[in-house]
Every structure is written in structure tokens, then in C-alpha cells.
């Protein structure tokens, strides 16, 4: 594998002048007096992406994600450092390709293709492909101003990916499209990746980042705050959003090498968590459909007026398979005092498909974790489901079926 994108010591600062006159003075007076101060948007960014890899970029609004993508695309220039990029780049920045509203989709597609450096003949060769993929029908010959935002994104994506680029950069664009088109475009992105296209993706969509990226970086206040596996970074990011006041977020490695993310204010914490099988033994491997019990021991550190325990079962990509809480189960504990530890027993049937799963727990005051977040623990427990006693099936849930066929 070869390097596709190398970003080294990259920094971006905007010159800020107290007023326009001081900019004029700085321009025309040849002395070196600096009349501006530089506002740094990105500081000392370093990362390398190998050809065919997909890197997710996550961060809150204003963290510098879009600026970073613009610099990598080349529409904006870095102030310090260096970006090396190998091969042809296609980018979907700020939801589009800069279509002109008065021209038809077809005219705009040709224009955008030419802007990307393709020849007219090349674009014409791929026009049919663009039309087919965008699926906007006869609207292709209507002015773009009559398009919905979804249609514009469909066309923009189709144009940007009509010819497989070496590097594809997507900034949130796909979140505008409908679910059908999202699936279709992700399928195309996956196909490109298999052929060696490098992907840079900015998204707030957890599923998108986790299902397509090999790696993710979390930008915070213009620096790479964290870099790692998408699931780990996403967990950290979600914990960071939930973070309020003086809460802390920490990550510890579990015995299996996975990274557990713990955040919250710490009034209560999960002390022990395990799964018991039907015989009451603590195990980590279960058969499909087995009756199990999730036992959670909670330690109370400070008196709490109201406590709700929530848990989520996630698959190996971090997608939530099932989640509920004791508020929904009508088991809200009120006025718990320190020293009064609680033990929850949650019984359920392990109706999951074979695979590895994790459980995340939340100790909160209401049923949303954004109110009072005492503790949030991702990857609190990891277990495996195997199919020992059932006929083979695909997928992540066990939906027992009765089959019947009638010959007429």
C-alpha cells in the first residue's frame, strides 16, 4: 500500500485586521510592520492515509473539519505545514459542486466535470452513467433552481464520482439525500475503495462513519484531539457531546484490548456488570435464544434524588441493536443514598444472531442521557453469541419462523 494523503504540521490561520484601513496600510507600506493578528483555525495537524483507506473526520461545529477538507481539496491554502496528495481528487464540499441555478442539470454537470479537469469527450462518455446514477429523470434538462436539495446532491455526487477518483472527499453531503440514495452512494464508495480509492468523510452520522471508515480522527478546537478506530472515536465524541460542566471523559483499555469510554459526573457508577446464563453462571458466550440475566451492580457516591439505569446492546460495528432503561421499565429509584448499592437484574432471551456484541450502560436522572449524566460507559461488557442449537440463519436477530408452503 502506498501513501495517498500526507498531512504534516498543517496549520491554518485567518488574518484578522482591526479594520480595512490597517489591511490597506499593511499592503502598501513595504515595512514589515504586522497590523493583523492571526486567528488559528487548525493547528499542527498530522496524519497519513494509505491508498484505499477511509478516514472519518468527526468534531463539533466549528472544530475545523470543513476547513481541513478545503485545504486538502486545494480550494483553500494552508498557512503552515504541508499537504501531499497523490492522484486525482474529487470533492463534494459544502453540499455541492457550485451549480449555477439558471442552467440545466446537464449543463452544470458538464461544467463541473470540466472544472475538475476532465475533457468534454470524457464527460460525454460518462454522461449516461451520471444520469442513470442520479436518477432524477427528465429533470436533468431542467434548470437547477427547480431542484430540491436532495436532487442537487444526487447530481453532484453522480458527477463527482462518474470517473473513479484516487481520492474522494465528502463533506456531510450525503446526509441530505434520502435513505435510498445514501445506500446507493455508500455502495459506490465501497466499490471505489475496493479498487483503491482513498476516502475522507466528514459526518455526524455515526452509522456512516462506523460502517465505512477504517479510522477516524476527532478534531477539537483545531487540533487532532484523538485518533483511532471509528467506534472508539465515535463513543468518545458522543460522550464529549453529553459532557456538561466539569464532567470528565476517560478511556480505559479492557482485557480484550477494546477501549472503554467512561464519562459523566460520577455521583453513581457501575461497579460490576456481567451476564448470567440459565444456570446462574457468569459466562461470556451464549447460545442463540438462551435465557440470560444481565446483572449490574451500581455504587452510589453521593445522594441522588432520582436514578435511572439504561443499557444498549451494540453489534461489533457499534450499531445499536436494542436499548431500554429502568424508567421505561418503571423501576426508577428515588432518593438513593451513598453506601446503598443497587443491584439490577435484567432478564431477557438472547435472540441475537451469531457474533460479538457489547453492552453500554448509562446512569442518568431521566430517560435521556443529556439531562443528568452520572455515568456513561461504552463497552462495559463484551459477549459473544454462537449458534449451537438452531438451524443456520443470517443477520443479527433471531426471529423464529414457521414455514409453510402450499401447492395450488
Amino acid at each position: 500500500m502506498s501513501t495517498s494523503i500526507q498531512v504534516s504540521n498543517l496549520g491554518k490561520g485567518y488574518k484578522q485586521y482591526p479594520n480595512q484601513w490597517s489591511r490597506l496600510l499593511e499592503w502598501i507600506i513595504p515595512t514589515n510592520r504586522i497590523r493583523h493578528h492571526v486567528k488559528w483555525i487548525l493547528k499542527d495537524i498530522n496524519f497519513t492515509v494509505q491508498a484505499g483507506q477511509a478516514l472519518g473526520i468527526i468534531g463539533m461545529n466549528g472544530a475545523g473539519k470543513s476547513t481541513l477538507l478545503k485545504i486538502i481539496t486545494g480550494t483553500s491554502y494552508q498557512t503552515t505545514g504541508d499537504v501531499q496528495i497523490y492522484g486525482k481528487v474529487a470533492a463534494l464540499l459544502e453540499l455541492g459542486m457550485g451549480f449555477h441555478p439558471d442552467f440545466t442539470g446537464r449543463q452544470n454537470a458538464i461544467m463541473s466535470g470540466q472544472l475538475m479537469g476532465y475533457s468534454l469527450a470524457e464527460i460525454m462518455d460518462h454522461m449516461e452513467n451520471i444520469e442513470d446514477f442520479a436518477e432524477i429523470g427528465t429533470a436533468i434538462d431542467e434548470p437547477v433552481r427547480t431542484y430540491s436539495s436532495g436532487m442537487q446532491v444526487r447530481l453532484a455526487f453522480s458527477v463527482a464520482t462518474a470517473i473513479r477518483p484516487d481520492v474522494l472527499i465528502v463533506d456531510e453531503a450525503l446526509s441530505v439525500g434520502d435513505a435510498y440514495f445514501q445506500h446507493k452512494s455508500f455502495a459506490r464508495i465501497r466499490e471505489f475503495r475496493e479498487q483503491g480509492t482513498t476516502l475522507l468523510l466528514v459526518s455526524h452520522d455515526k452509522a456512516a462513519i462506523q460502517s465505512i471508515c477504517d479510522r477516524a480522527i476527532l478534531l477539537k478546537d483545531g487540533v487532532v484531539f484523538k485518533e483511532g478506530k471509528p467506534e472508539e472515536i465515535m463513543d468518545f465524541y458522543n460522550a464529549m457531546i453529553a459532557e456538561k460542566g466539569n464532567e470528565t471523559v476517560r478511556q480505559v483499555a479492557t482485557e480484550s484490548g477494546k477501549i472503554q469510554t467512561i464519562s459523566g459526573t460520577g455521583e453513581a457508577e457501575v461497579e460490576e456488570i456481567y451476564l448470567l446464563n440459565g444456570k446462574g453462571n457468569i459466562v461470556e458466550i451464549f447460545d442463540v435464544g438462551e435465557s440470560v440475566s444481565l446483572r449490574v451492580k451500581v455504587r452510589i457516591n453521593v445522594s441522588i434524588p432520582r436514578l435511572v439505569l439504561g443499557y444498549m446492546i451494540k453489534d461489533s460495528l457499534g450499531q445499536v441493536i436494542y436499548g431500554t432503561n429502568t424508567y421505561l421499565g418503571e423501576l426508577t429509584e428515588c432518593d438513593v443514598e451513598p453506601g446503598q448499592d443497587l443491584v439490577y437484574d435484567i432478564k431477557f432471551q438472547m435472540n441475537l444472531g451469531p457474533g460479538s456484541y457489547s453492552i453500554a450502560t448509562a446512569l442518568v436522572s431521566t430517560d435521556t442521557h443529556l439531562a443528568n449524566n452520572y455515568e456513561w460507559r461504552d463497552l462495559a461488557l463484551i459477549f459473544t453469541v454462537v449458534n449451537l442449537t438452531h438451524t443456520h440463519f443470517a443477520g443479527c436477530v433471531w426471529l423464529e419462523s414457521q414455514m409453510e408452503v402450499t401447492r395450488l
Partner: protein
Amino acid sequence: MFKTIVQYRQFIWSCVKREFQSRYRKSLLGSAWAVINPLAMIIVYTVIFSQVMKAKLPGIDSTFGYSIFLCAGTLTWGLFAEIIGRSTTVFLDNANILKKINFPRICLPVAIICTAIINFLIISFLFLMFLIFTGNFPGIEILAIVPLLLILILFSAGLGITLGVLNVFFRDVGQMVGILLQFWFWFTPIVYPPTIIPIWARGFLAWNPMTQIVRAFQIIFVEKRWPDMEGPLIVAVLSVGLCMLALRLYRRHVGEMVDEL
């Protein structure tokens, strides 16, 4: 830079086509307007000034003398004003694509210049037709307009790109250019012959690069003789200087430009 322009020639050509399309979109007569407009101008100048007002240029005896004088001046000025006016706002007008796609930005002013030249050629063609029909075609001296045109385009391009880059950072430039062009137009002998202004003011007039160019055109078409090339050559040197300034400004600030749009 010239390599990239050649590489993006198809895009530049599309821009030019698009420019014409957007100008005449949704009009019944379409691009016929590109011909009707200048035609109307020539008719107004000839009918009003030669037939109705019987305006005469001092020293020129032809009926159409003043009309030809006017056309030669406005044609030349039109090319200059179009390049300057459009180049000043070209980066602002295209902010949308500048922010989203990475391509050589210099293509945009180049497309503007090409569009202006095509417009000029359409009008010139009509003007030449008019000259032939009225028996006022200058003859071999017409060839002198080729170097003059090159100088004019170089001058306009250098000034236009300079103003275009400056306008991204100082929007005052855009406002100023409109006013500047007004003053400049009247400070150039286009509607009046320089002979009608006092001697002392003529000295100032000669400092105006556009005077040199416009005068040369007028001499070719009205007096039908080779113009004195000394003035235009000085303008050529100035134009090369302007173009170098424009390129320097462009190279130095093209990176910051997107951040200001």
C-alpha cells in the same frame, strides 16, 4: 500558468459559451441581440449625428465623418470597459465554484477577456460592413489595428486582473471602478475631438493611455492613414508592467482569496 490555461481551454470555452447563453437566455431572439444592440448603436450614431444634426468634424469633409469617429472610439472603449468592469467582480461572482472546486483560478478572468473579445469582434464586423457600404473602408491601413488591439487587450487584462484581485480584499475597488470608468470615458477623446479642448489641457490628455489607443483607432478609420505608433508603444510597455503587477498580486494572494469570499 500558460500551460494550465491551455490545459483548461475547453473549460474556458464553455465559460464563454455560458456567458453568452446566460445573457440571452429566455429571450425570443436569443443571441440575435448580440448583433441588434451594436447595430442600433451604429444606426443611432449615423442617423442622428450625420443626417439629423449634420455634425461635422473639423477638417474632415465626409458626411459620416463624425459617426465613424464616434464608432471607432466607443468600440475601442467598449472592449476596455467590458474587460475592466467584468474582471473587477469576476472572483466575487464565482465565489460559489471557487469555494468548492479546485481549479486554476486564472481561467475565470481569461474567460471574461475572451468573451469581451468575441463581443468586440461581432461589433467590429458590423462596423466594417457599414464602412464598406458607405465607401469609407480605410484600406491596407486597417492592419494597424492588430497590434493596437493586442496592446489594448494587454492593458485591459493587466488592469482588470489587478482590480479583480484587489476587489476581493477591498470591496471599495468595485464601487470605485464604476465611478472611475465614468470619469475616464469623458477624459478620453471619444465623443469629442481633442482639438476642441484648450492646448494646456491636451497635454494632460496625452498622459491617458486610453487616449493613445483611441486616437490611433480614430486616425485609422477617420483619417484613413497609419497612426503614429509612438504613444501606443509607450502604452504597451506600461501594459506589460501592469500585467506583471497583476500576476504578482494574483500569485501572492490567490491563496487568501477563498478565505475572503
